[in-house]
């Protein structure tokens, strides 16, 4: 296939970065055609692997001059097709910028390059009794640059927040190659909330080349409960009751029966396979705090109808309780050829109802759904099992996913809690936002990138696309949620 790129442009890329850091060979390019949402693929024309900030700046200036689209890429573990290459563009892979520049134990910060893996930060901070709190399940592989672009969460974000709550400052290269510093290490910066805007902007506003993140002291005591229920409904209500009771667990995860069974078969964590649902509920802090919280949680859980409450006896058992949860995705991968992971968030009080509706959708379309998710945040991750080899199956999975996302919006939630919109959820942006709101997103994008070169075609659907999809959000008679009680 002839390259769509100007050959002088390609030559200059090679001059700037050196031949070894430029990939144009189609076989080698394959690695970069998709992220973890493998259903969406496209081969890039060229991949550049800069090693320094100056190279990133020079590359962007070059792309700007030649009007070549740029897609940034971290580890490619994204689940929304965010790194899908633009047909006439290049991919800038940040994987070679993976230095931890400084751990500052006094100020409790780490300054890192974008390609540093999430877990590597905590590993480096451990010597000082500190760690980086956001812990996406993909943390051994995903990069801090990707985490910032997606505003990633993890099992512990109910208490410790998402990426946006844990990043103090970033350096970002604009599409013109200019270096900007957003935020500040003094816990505040004057002016608009531009740091928060940049976090979760999915590579549309600039390329993150450095980040200063907050480190927290490792809690001296951690304890986890494994709680079984006879119905998913009870488990859902127990989640709401715990939070209503004034407890903020470090983690609060729910697995339904299907998830319990597949993970138990895989990791033998001694999960109660007869239970319709289990909750994993973790507390951390001073020993006395954890003790108090556990007593209170036990009484709330008992009142919510728990059929069994186990408290991990020691660190090993605690790890075992979590092992099942952590292995849930690969375990599902063992029983199903393919699965599609959804990511809506809903108000906790609708958990039970939404889970019931999801199982109805699942029956109607005859595709199994496994639920394992961040219940404390109301962040659902229904895994839709399908077989890509079976004609029509993927379409059904997509349809089911769409029904779930629309339901999330209906009950006052959102189409994505932590995985981002990327390419995948473009259509559902039309469901969640009005034409005027999408227009505002466009103008904001223009403020950073007037020629639409940075990750073009992602996150913001065109109005034309929404019209074709046949759904456009209209605010119910203008005010939000007219169905809800006014206080």
């Amino acid at each position, binding site marked *: 296939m002839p390259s769509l790129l100007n050959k002088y442009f390609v030559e200059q890329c090679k001059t700037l970065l050196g031949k070894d850091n430029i990939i144009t060979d189609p076989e080698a390019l394959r690695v970069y055609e998709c992220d973890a949402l493998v259903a969406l693929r496209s081969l890039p024309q060229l991949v550049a692997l800069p090693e320094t900030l100056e190279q990133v700046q020079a590359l962007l200036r070059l792309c700007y001059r030649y009007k070549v689209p740029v897609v940034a890429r971290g580890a490619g573990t994204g689940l929304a097709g965010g790194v899908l290459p633009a047909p006439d563009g290049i991919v800038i892979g940040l994987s070679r910028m993976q230095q931890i520049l400084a751990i500052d134990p006094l100020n409790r910060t780490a300054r890192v390059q974008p390609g540093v893996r999430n877990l590597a930060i905590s590993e480096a901070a451990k010597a000082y009794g500190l760690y980086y709190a956001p812990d996406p399940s993909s943390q051994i592989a995903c990069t801090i640059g990707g985490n910032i672009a997606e505003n990633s969460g993890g099992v512990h974000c109910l208490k410790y927040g998402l990426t946006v709550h844990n990043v103090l400052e970033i350096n970002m290269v604009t599409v013109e190659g200019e270096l900007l510093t957003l935020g500040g290490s003094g816990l505040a910066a*004057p002016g*608009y909330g531009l740091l*928060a805007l940049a976090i979760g902007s999915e590579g549309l506003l600039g390329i993150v080349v450095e980040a200063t993140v907050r480190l927290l002291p490792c809690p001296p005591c951690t304890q986890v409960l494994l709680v079984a229920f006879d119905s998913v409904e009870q488990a859902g209500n127990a989640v709401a009751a715990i939070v209503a009771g004034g407890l903020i667990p470090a983690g609060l995860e729910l697995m339904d029966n299907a998830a319990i069974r597949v993970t138990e078969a895989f990791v033998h964590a001694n999960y109660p396979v007869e239970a319709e649902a289990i909750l994993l509920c973790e507390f951390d802090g001073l020993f006395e705090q954890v003790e108090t919280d556990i007593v209170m949680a036990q009484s709330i859980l008992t009142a919510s109808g728990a059929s069994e409450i186990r408290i991990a006896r020691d660190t090993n058992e605690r790890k075992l309780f979590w092992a099942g949860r952590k292995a849930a995705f690969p375990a599902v991968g063992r029983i199903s050829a393919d699965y599609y992971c959804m990511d809506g968030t809903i*108000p906790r009080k609708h958990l039970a109802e939404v889970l019931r509706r999801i199982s109805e959708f699942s029956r109607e379309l005859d595709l199994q759904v496994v639920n394992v998710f961040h219940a404390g945040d*109301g962040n659902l991750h229904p895994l839709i099992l399908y077989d890509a080899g079976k004609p029509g199956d993927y379409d059904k999975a997509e349809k089911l996913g769409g029904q779930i996302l629309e339901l999330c919006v209906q009950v006052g939630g959102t189409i994505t809690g932590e995985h981002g919109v990327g390419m995948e959820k473009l259509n559902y942006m039309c469901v969640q936002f009005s034409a005027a709101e999408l227009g505002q997103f466009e103008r904001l994008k223009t403020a950073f990138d007037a020629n639409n070169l940075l990750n073009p075609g992602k996150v913001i659907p065109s109005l034309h696309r929404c019209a074709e999809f046949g759904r456009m959000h209209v605010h119910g008679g203008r005010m939000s949620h007219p169905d809800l009680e006014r206080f």
Partner: protein
Amino acid sequence: MIIDQDLSLNLQSRVERAFQDRTPITISGGGSKAFFGLPAAADETLDVTGHRGIVYYEPSELVVTARAGTLLKTLDKVLEEQGQMLAFEPPCFNDQATVGGTVACGFSGPRRPFTGSVSDFVLGCSIINGKSEYLRFGGRVMKNVAGFDVARLMTGALGQLGVLLEVSLRVMPIPETEMTLCYRVSQVSRALEMMQHWQGQSWPISALVYDGTILHVRLSGAEAAIKKAAHQLGGDLDLDGRLFWAGLRDHRLDFFKTSENLWRINIPPATQMSKISGQYLLDWGGAQRWLSSPEPAARIHQIVREHNGHAVCFRGAEKNDWIRFDPGLLNLHKKVRYAFDPCSILNPHRFTTGL
């Protein structure tokens, strides 16, 4: 509870008129923070205080949605009845402080380093932008990454990106117990050391301040945990701790009764910085420092900058050089502003000439 009238349509038509006539407007809440920054260069005033009321509060969801004109003290009271609070501990300064003004100014109080900033607690908002469009961003759930985070972009924007109509905030349970401990410390360097040392360990600290003589520590959490921590940390018990923290939050302590310029400095918390003469009060475990000083603005900005921080003249006569942005950042602010308010009708020049 009496439901206040929804004035969003009135506000929208006012903005629409201003947009059509290109007449700049000052957005005015309770005026408790009018001293901050420059006055908007506008002849007309849009009073948003009538647009008030709590429109949604679900304690078990830890979320409250309030109209922008709602008084902070009203909101605080409603939350307190349910055992909850705004965990960023926003300053009121006076009884007229509103929810909208709090978000627009982006002020957080003593609890900030331990629980989060106002921006951290903003979940969603509705606004009228400078083209008089009604828009909603974010929502009422804690995790939401659909589209750009416009709701958090609004914090600190001083109203320039839109008239805030409603704000959804995450709320937190009020801690079971709070206790204040005091230590007499004569040297700033020693106070900074103690503060960093404790923050590097897992104590249930919820505020940490050095006022020049005394280091104040607030502990929050379960009674058993607080007792244990207090026992291990030592220090003297301050039975009037609540008053101290409220006085600090609202700038009612004697320290703030200064005739000099009052500067707010945000800086990496461990920084030892003594070159600027004046009185210091170190809040946020050292990350936010209040400085009352007669020194010239240029010198303060420069020295703070050298230490990787930012300074703003919070109160006082220094208006021309009260805040500084790097040229690239200033330019970006202007472009973002243009995206929301292309005719610069909302609170123009509130930061500086041209912004």
